[in-house]
């Protein structure tokens, strides 16, 4: 099977649909991760958000641009999730959508730049850096991996696969970290030894992208 060469509106919709399915499947695991070092709502929040995204995209009907799909998805997350992840994921997808602009189909380089804009939006809004034990610790290697693959001549498909793997590695690396941002930071040293829930959901987002373009 050969992957897509461009991320078009249908692929963007597919990305969101697959993310919605993934967070539904993994809801309880995300909740448990959040219960350990947070307040136990991350699974429910992600499900609520991406269910709303699915509904909003269905209601919007034809959208010809992938950027429009992601802008709407981001706006919907902001309006339906709440918590830390709502504004962060919402702003990230809005930034991705905005970066895609009016391209009807985005190639690997464009998608990589757009994902970078998403990462930057999270950093700008939340003020976290790599190593703070947040979703950024999955976003940063994922985007870096994506861009690295594209720079090396990799296909969109391959880059997305690479990014998902890098996200997973980044998420794993949050386990030994002591949280400095978000709710887990209140635990100080007791936050060590747990996977960050936002990093875990970021893996699902990038895995869904890989599946959507794969």
């Amino acid at each position, binding site marked *: 099977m050969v992957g897509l060469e461009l991320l078009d509106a249908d692929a963007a919709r597919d990305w969101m649909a697959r993310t919605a399915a993934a967070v539904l499947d993994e809801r309880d695991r995300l909740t448990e991760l959040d219960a350990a070092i947070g307040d136990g709502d991350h699974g429910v929040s992600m499900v609520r958000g991406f269910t709303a995204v699915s509904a909003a995209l269905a209601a919007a009907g034809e959208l010809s641009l992938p950027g429009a799909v992601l802008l709407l998805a981001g706006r919907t997350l902001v309006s339906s999730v709440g918590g830390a992840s709502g*504004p962060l994921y919402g702003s990230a997808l809005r930034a991705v959508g905005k970066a895609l602009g009016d391209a009807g189909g985005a190639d690997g380089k464009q998608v990589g730049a757009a994902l970078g804009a998403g990462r930057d939006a999270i950093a700008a809004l939340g003020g976290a850096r790599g190593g703070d034990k947040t979703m950024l610790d999955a976003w940063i290697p994922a985007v870096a991996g994506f861009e690295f693959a594209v720079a090396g001549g990799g296909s969109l498909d391959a880059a997305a696969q690479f990014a998902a793997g890098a996200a997973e590695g980044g998420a794993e690396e949050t386990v030994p970290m002591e949280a400095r941002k978000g709710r887990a930071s209140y635990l100080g040293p007791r936050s060590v030894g747990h996977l960050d829930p936002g990093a875990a959901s970021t893996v699902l987002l990038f895995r869904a992208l890989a599946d959507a373009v794969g």
Partner: protein
Amino acid sequence: MKKLINSPDEVVTDALAGIAAAHPGLSVDTKARVITRAAQTRIGKVALVSGGGSGHEPLHGGFVGTGMLDAACPGEVFTSPVPDQMLAAAKAVDGGAGVVFVVKNYTGDVLNFRMAAEFAEEEGISVQTVLVDDDVAVQDSTWTAGRRGTGATLLVEKMAGAAAEFGGSLAEVAATGRRVNAASRSFAVALTSCTTPAAGRPGFDLPEDEIEVGVGIHGEPGRSREKIRPARQIVADAMAAILDDQPLDPGEEVIALVNGLGGTPLLELYIVFGEVASVLAARGVRIARSLVGNYVTSLDMAGVSITLCRADEELLTLWDAPVNTPALRWGV
């Protein structure tokens, strides 16, 4: 999990229906999820809006009314509300003099309120934000998310609310709120975890002889786990944490709040208050005003938080000012 609910998804909606039925003095928009006073904001009065995750009742909805909040935005359980709610609230209650957002310092609340403030400014509503961060259990630093907002939220909402009622400007009301926050310190101890409807089981397991010390109000574990001790010692430790952070000299006055986290009987809260009073008396600090009860809760968590606010004439006047809300009422 056993709860008096219809389904985990409907908790907030159903509770809002109950609040609407119980309080004719409030107006509840169950669709937009905004609770406001039934009466319109007086033209020229600064409006106070707060909100946060549900599960802390009576905070915030129970504090909407004359002398306190103009509107509250309840989020899902332990999940901050979304900017749309805050924007709807700001539009509903702005009386032309601007809106103060009272925000507990949690990343989620801060980010959602920040977005709402941007949207509101875009619509021509002036917004000032008062951040509440009173919990001394959390080490403060510019590199972290900072301290949590807990019991002091009630004090900020009460006294900033009074300042607004007295005709304070947007800047003045916000300054009052910030002053109350700066004067307040809190510390909480949990005897049990709590169970969110969605999770269906306790956030953490606590053995029959252990307590979580330095907890917040979202069922997160605290700073450390310790053996259960007599109330006197638990209070002594909590008071030490508070007073280390903000020493109080003999002759100073405080407003003291002993707040139940939801599952602790009032009988025990009074025992705790008695111990707080002893500690302060030994230091020569006078309890000028006090409050004992369940005000800023964490669902069914058993435990208590102690908040001390260093008071002066002005703050006491604001504290004593009339307030008429479901959960706090005097002078009316």
